[in-house]
């Protein structure tokens, strides 16, 4: 290969240079801003993690698997995964191979930013470049891959169902500009390269197109700079446009995710609604809209615009009215996070938006005096507010524990203090912390070594937000399953067939999927719901939502019931008092808590 343009420069590279200069500067400033906004200890943790070999390797692997290959999208839908990874990985390879070409053939040009991108314009093929032939083949292969990906993307605009998506996001105006310029980049590259392919060479894609153009337009026409330069100009301009609009479109997720992954691996979490790590999550949202189909609220068309993808968009726009509306409505079931390919924590983001609100009346529990539980045994049972409202669960718990002869104390049998989770979810952190403090005192004073809970909402709170050294926090499904394994709890299997509903807080919240199933499986037969485990559908009764009214929730509960009863079970079993009472309201078959099922089979 030899250089065709001695100066190594042509004005057509300018739009590209302006674009890449702008986007790199923007990203560098944004990254510094995020780092500056993070608390000092978070920053330290982040830098330390970057020089820790294991974390650094994990970062590289995660970036490769998530940003380039889109592993999570492949798991969701093969076609969707192929479409995204063909564009992302193909583009990456073209850039990489472009640099390799420059490195191999014109190494003194490696300092020029644009050279690898417009390599085929600046060089002419000589007859001694077999290695080049191989690289040309790879270049054309990846260009073809990208073009297939873009073809699929165009099909997806019209028939998203083929890609496993019922609903997709409505792009904003700038998103559309970004989208069309992205779609144009690669066909224009192909055109530009095929105009000059008789000089610079090419492979199975570029060459035939060059022959075709020659046949139609004549080779003199193609070789005339007045005709082939405009194609390179067009390619450069489209690249420039894409990069200039990138920071203001959903494509900002490409650079942001590369920073989000190392920060998440370093153990950083959201600490502020609009600063630091939270900003990274917001800007990492690719706006794919997978969360729209997943959201339990989207059964009602009116709620579609309240999904996490729109929350991220509104936070970017700073539309306070909509941010408040979206944050307050959410059930905080966590399903959007479960299905999200970049792991945007919709619920946590919303809780922090709620926490920004100022209240004129602030509850204070300092004066509340609750008598510490009289200690009987080593097991302290905390039913929580929701168990108090579903007395049958409390009775079953008492009955089972009694039959097994376990010494226990029911901490809040005659009322007590809430675990604090609903208050925390409402974003009122100081009040929640006050309740945590009160309960911690009571629990520590009891001298128990096991805290048993029958409500997953409380379980999540005690597990994650309380400091109870030496005290084991356990949900009743885990506790009973352990007793069953050790042979203390002997269940007789009834011939009833249950569908098990994974409560949001127990499943997605705490990752407890197996114990309830094992326990239920030894007491009855189980059928699975259509969507289960991590993708189970919230019952609609969640305390997470502040503004959803009773009537608005009905459609959600009915949809969740439909999903549960697909296999035609005799009854529904769940492990959450709130789910139980919500389902019982509309279900045509009995709804029982696992404690009740265990009690019946004991």
């Amino acid at each position, binding site marked *: 290969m030899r250089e065709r343009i001695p100066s190594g420069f042509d004005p057509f590279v300018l739009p590209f240079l302006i674009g890449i200069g702008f986007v790199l500067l923007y990203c560098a400033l944004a990254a510094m801003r995020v780092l500056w906004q993070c608390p000092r200890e978070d920053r330290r943790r982040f830098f330390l993690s970057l020089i820790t070999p294991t974390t650094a390797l994990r970062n590289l692997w995660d970036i490769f698997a998530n940003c380039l290959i889109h592993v999570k999208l492949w798991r969701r839908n093969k076609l969707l995964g192929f479409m995204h990874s063909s564009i992302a990985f193909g583009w990456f390879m073209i850039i990489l191979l472009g640099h390799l070409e420059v490195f191999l053939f014109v190494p003194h040009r490696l300092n020029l930013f644009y050279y690898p991108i417009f390599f085929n314009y600046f060089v002419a093929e000589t007859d001694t470049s077999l290695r080049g032939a191989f690289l040309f083949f790879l270049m054309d292969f990846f260009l073809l891959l990208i073009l297939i990906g873009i073809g699929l993307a165009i099909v997806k605009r019209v028939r998203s169902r083929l890609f496993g998506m019922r609903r997709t996001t409505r792009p904003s105006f700038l998103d559309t500009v970004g989208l069309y310029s992205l779609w144009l980049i690669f066909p224009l590259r192909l055109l530009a390269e095929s105009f000059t392919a008789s000089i610079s060479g090419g492979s199975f894609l570029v060459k035939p197109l060059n022959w075709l153009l020659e046949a139609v337009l004549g080779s003199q026409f193609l070789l005339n700079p007045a005709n082939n330069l405009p194609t390179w100009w067009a390619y450069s301009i489209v690249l420039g446009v894409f990069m200039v609009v990138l920071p203001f479109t959903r494509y900002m997720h490409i650079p942001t995710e590369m920073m989000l992954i190392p920060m998440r691996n370093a153990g950083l979490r959201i600490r502020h609604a609009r600063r630091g790590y939270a900003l990274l999550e917001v800007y990492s949202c690719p706006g794919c809209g997978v969360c729209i189909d997943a959201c339990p609220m989207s059964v009602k068309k009116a709620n579609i615009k309240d999904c996490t993808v729109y929350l991220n968009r509104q936070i970017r726009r700073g539309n306070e009215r909509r941010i408040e509306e979206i944050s307050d409505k959410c059930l905080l079931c966590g399903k959007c996070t479960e299905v999200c390919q970049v792991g945007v924590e919709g619920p946590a983001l919303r809780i922090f938006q709620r926490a920004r609100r100022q209240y004129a009346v602030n509850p204070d529990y300092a004066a509340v005096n609750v008598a510490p539980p009289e200690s009987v045994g080593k097991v302290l049972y905390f039913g929580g507010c929701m168990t108090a*409202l579903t007395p049958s669960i409390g009775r079953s718990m008492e009955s089972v524990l009694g039959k097994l002869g376990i010494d226990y104390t029911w901490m809040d049998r005659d*009322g007590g*203090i809430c675990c604090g989770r609903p208050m925390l979810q*409402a974003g009122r952190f100081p009040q929640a912390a006050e309740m945590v403090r009160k309960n911690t005192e009571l629990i520590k004073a009891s001298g128990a070594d096991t805290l048993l809970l029958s409500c997953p909402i409380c379980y999540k709170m005690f597990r994650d937000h309380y400091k109870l050294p030496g005290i084991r926090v356990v949900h009743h499904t885990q506790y009973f399953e352990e007793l069953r394994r050790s042979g203390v709890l002997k269940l007789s299997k009834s011939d009833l067939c249950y569908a098990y509903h994974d409560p949001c807080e127990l499943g997605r919240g705490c990752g407890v999927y197996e114990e309830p199933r094992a326990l239920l499986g030894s007491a009855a037969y189980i059928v699975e719901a259509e969507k289960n485990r991590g993708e189970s559908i919230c019952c609609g009764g969640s*305390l997470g939502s*502040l*503004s959803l009214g009773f009537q608005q929730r009905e459609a959600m509960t009915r949809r969740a019931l439909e999903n549960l009863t697909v296999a035609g079970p005799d009854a529904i079993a769940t492990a959450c008092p709130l789910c139980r009472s919500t389902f019982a309201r509309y279900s045509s078959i009995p709804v029982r808590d696992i404690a009740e099922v265990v009690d019946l089979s004991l």
Partner: protein
Amino acid sequence: MDFGFSLSPSSAIDLDKVDLSLYRRLEQTVPDIRNCIACGSCSATCMAADYSGMSVRKLILNLQRGADVKKMLSCCMLCGKCTMVCPRGINTRKLILDVCRYYSDEKV
């Protein structure tokens, strides 16, 4: 002159004089508030009733009368039991949060 006893102040409420601006505002943000039938289910289940005399039924009544609600709210834990038992489906948690938000000491 001290007689060793005093008359208790009148508990009559003059609805023409009390400030109902908070209630009017809540009627906008939580329209369900008008559906309350004062059945008292919320009072019966309330966790904070023992500590601060909290009761959503009484809260709504006091709001309609322009009376003070700050004290009873001081121990509400937002646990949501009142919402779950309400036969009229009133979103009591939103009501409570909105009272906390829009409350103003100056009105009394």
